[in-house]
């Protein structure tokens, strides 16, 4: 691949269940081709995995998680998860998990050949609604950007209903100016990078 026009990275990794329990086996091996075109973010990703959790089981787990979330009372001043000392209260874990999921879409969209990200913190929750069937989650996260070392706040609005594609709208603040990156992502229910098994 012509380095001026793009950069191809091949990645091999193994997956495990998120929040894996002790003694659970790792899942399958995956290989991915990642292609950055013309220094632009949002690389094309082509992933194949040898073994994931079967679809039916995934759907069951989603439903369970969904039920649990509907019952959650989220204190709207649930700011700073984890806190300064890296601590996440067990009761707030599901919120963190969902926040992380939404943030992972944003990070994928922003990642380029020269910039990559880690999620630092869920810094505030604007809204957590579950009155109609979907979970409607409006929050802000802080992303740590390499190599600039900047901390980027991103406002994310996520709507989830198990079985339906995840909808993510976001808006990230640039450095001191109004450079913003925003977008809408629709999670596909087909690609393995989907939202079950969280």
């Amino acid at each position: 691949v012509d380095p001026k026009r793009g950069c191809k990275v091949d990645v091999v990794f193994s997956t495990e269940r998120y929040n894996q329990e002790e003694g659970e086996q790792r899942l399958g091996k995956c290989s991915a081709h990642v292609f950055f075109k013309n220094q632009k973010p949002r690389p094309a990703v082509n992933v194949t995995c040898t073994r994931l959790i079967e679809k039916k089981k995934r759907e069951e787990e989603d439903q369970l998680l969904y039920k649990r979330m509907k019952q959650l009372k989220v204190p709207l001043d649930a700011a700073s998860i984890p806190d300064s000392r890296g601590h996440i209260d067990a009761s707030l874990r599901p919120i963190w998990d969902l926040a992380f999921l939404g943030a992972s879409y944003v990070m994928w969209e922003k990642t380029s050949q020269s910039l990559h990200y880690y999620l630092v913190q869920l810094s505030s929750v604007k809204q957590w609604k579950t009155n109609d069937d979907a979970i409607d989650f409006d929050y802000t996260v802080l992303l740590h950007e390499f190599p600039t070392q900047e901390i980027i706040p991103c406002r994310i609005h996520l709507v989830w209903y198990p079985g339906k594609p995840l909808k993510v709208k976001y808006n990230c603040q640039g450095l001191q100016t109004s450079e913003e990156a925003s977008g809408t992502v629709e999670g596909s229910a087909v690609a393995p990078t989907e939202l079950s098994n969280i």
Partner: protein
Amino acid sequence: MQGLLVFTVLLGVAFGNEDFVGHQVLRISAADEAQVQKVKELEDLEHLKLDFWRGPTNPGSPIDVRVPFSSVQAVKVFLESLGIRYKIMIEDVQSLLDEEKEQMLSSKPRTWVRSTDAFNYATYHTLEEIHDFVDLLVSENPQLVSKIQIGNTYEGRPIYVLKFSTGGNNRPAIWIDTGIHSREWVTQASGVWFAKKITEDYGQDPAFTAILDSMDIFLEIVTNPDGFAFTHSKNRLWRKTRSLTAGSSCVGVDPNRNWDAGFGKAGASSNPCSDTYHGKFANSEVEVKSIVDFVQSHGNIKAFISIHSYSQLLLYPYGYKSEDAPDKEELDQLAKSAVTALASLYGTKYQYGSIIKTIYEASGSTVDWTYSQGIKYSYTFELRDTGRYGFLLPASQIIPTAKETWLALLTIMEHTLNHPY
């Protein structure tokens, strides 16, 4: 400065709830004797009600004055018409006082501990608690440990370095610093643990005793005190110093881009609002200059280790250029042994290599400068983790991190001892 502010508040209270809304504190730079005189004349104008915190003395010494709201315009016009330079140090004294008050009311009471054995190493501490720890450690080990002040920060805090020595006169030494980037909390916490470890192992562990019998160790635990205080009071993710930059509303310089090695080249930012802002010139930051002065006047430092987090890396020069350092082979081999030792404890995997090849291009970084000064064993660590918690590393990981890192440090120190140069 903080003490003065509190004093002023108390005075204000004593004189019947004085309020400081709109009051500004100006720092005046008188260029010559004539300008100093003019400012002295200002002092005499009682109706302006000026309150000099640092009075006019001679050209070159800053003059700090609190100006009541009603006099602000007049004073500025006066200074400007005479071409006397000044900058606004505090935009509104009252809001600063309000913030401080809130902070004092809401912050946890200082945890007072009677001995370093009772100190909790598995939790994150405040600046005051670390200072108390340091004083305790010195008093418990007066033969081995002493505290040196190498300077004062931008905001006036003392900068302390611990010296561990079993005697001799200016022995070859090892320097370790933690917390140069204030948000990297596991590093200052590890520094505290290292300090205690040194006092425990000397005389007990033969290999370590051999090191300290021939060499001195200097340990700067809080290398960026202003930044560290800020991570506790206002912004947990603050990285830089807290210096004010003339002409910008943004604060702070990246102390790991401010050294005189490839200063200002690619790998740092010239934007004061950036987290990798290199500053107006090399060593502009007193926190950096203090170390530079110390290293140069000591003249016998043989290993220099600067500790950061996160990414799990052990790095050696260069950051600002891609050519190999002359000692690359040896530095690489030593790094390999060090990370192997580190992994032996809990299996924590580190990568190693030159800064530019392993992490990213960075100019004006600490170890590029120390290496240029002839300190061959110049290393930068990036401790746990690799991004899962990043800066917000759970406190439960402090001691494991410190323990494994210590093994790597021992490897480097031993090699330095056995390869004098």
